């Protein structure tokens, strides 16, 4: 199936598209954008290690 072939690394299959109103987005691009949003949310919420004082 297409999903399996993508997970196996074969991206030379025709893309699938998500259509919402005037927006059509490929699953590849959607994945990139979702990953970016996740990275942003994690970046601002995950605790950052306490550093040594250098006052």
């Amino acid at each position, binding site marked *: 199936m297409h999903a399996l072939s993508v997970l196996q690394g074969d991206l030379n*299959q*025709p*893309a699938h*598209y998500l259509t919402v109103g005037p*927006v059509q987005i*490929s699953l*590849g691009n959607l994945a*990139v954008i979702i990953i970016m949003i996740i990275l942003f949310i994690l970046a601002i919420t995950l605790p950052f290690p306490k*550093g040594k*004082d250098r006052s």
Partner: protein
Amino acid sequence: MTNATDIERRPWAGANREYDIVKEFVIAMVVVTALTLGLAFAFGSPDDKNLTLQSWAAASPGDLVATAAQELAGTSGVAGYGPPYNNTPDVSQSIGPINLQELAGVRIPIDTATDFVIRPLEQMPANAATTDAINAWKGATPDQQAKWAGDYADAIDAADGDYTKVAAGDYGPVPVLTGSLLAAAEGGALDGVLLTQGRVYSTDYTLPLLFLADGTYLEDQARAQHLGGDQWGMTNETGSYPGQSWLWLYTFWYQIEPFASSDNADAWVWGLMMVLTVGLMLLPFIPGLRSIPRWIPVHRLIWRDYYKTHAVVKR
């Protein structure tokens, strides 16, 4: 009274923490390099083979012949384009009264009949029939040329693109010219001749690409992969690869009215994107927009440790 702006402007006078900028950079390089090498290994990259005039001739000979007829008739996309290719009146795009396309002028001059059909045929070994056809074409008036080629293009259209089933009519030398061009494309010679135009070295693909784009073959292949302008194609890639999602806003406008059906869509979208881009650049100076980070306090999350461990200073 202490002004927040003063503290923001001056070198930081508060507490510091240890920081290793060199180590941070090295870690970033290692992680990003490893990530890239891994993604490249797992997913590779797309490489759909380029179309050639030869592959066009094999896949859609009727489309190539019809396109050649339109180039001769002066009714093709390039022929009716205006600057930078030619001076066709009333076809260029403008933003209100401003017409930058005309202002730039004809800097890549193309005479479609000569550049796409006649000269390539002259630069290739020709049989007697083709030579006669070229001479007949050159000896005719522009009006006669336009009529022959225009009628032939219409007749191909009426025959559903099958140039072999065209109705009888007076098309002058056009069927021989376009037929010879097709034969040259089928044999592979036209790709080279249109690119090099008689010289040896050329890295300028303007003529072969414009000729290809004047037909429907290139666009058909592109639309099949969702690369068309009204398919958000600008953001897409061949296959299932992620494409150029950063172009989302640029292509968005083409999907909605009034741009979708406007003849000036390209110019208007460029103008709009220029304005928005300058707006983004000058955001620090735009009241309201520059205050959004204060109104929606995402920063309280980012600097939560600082806010928590510091008390409000009594003045």
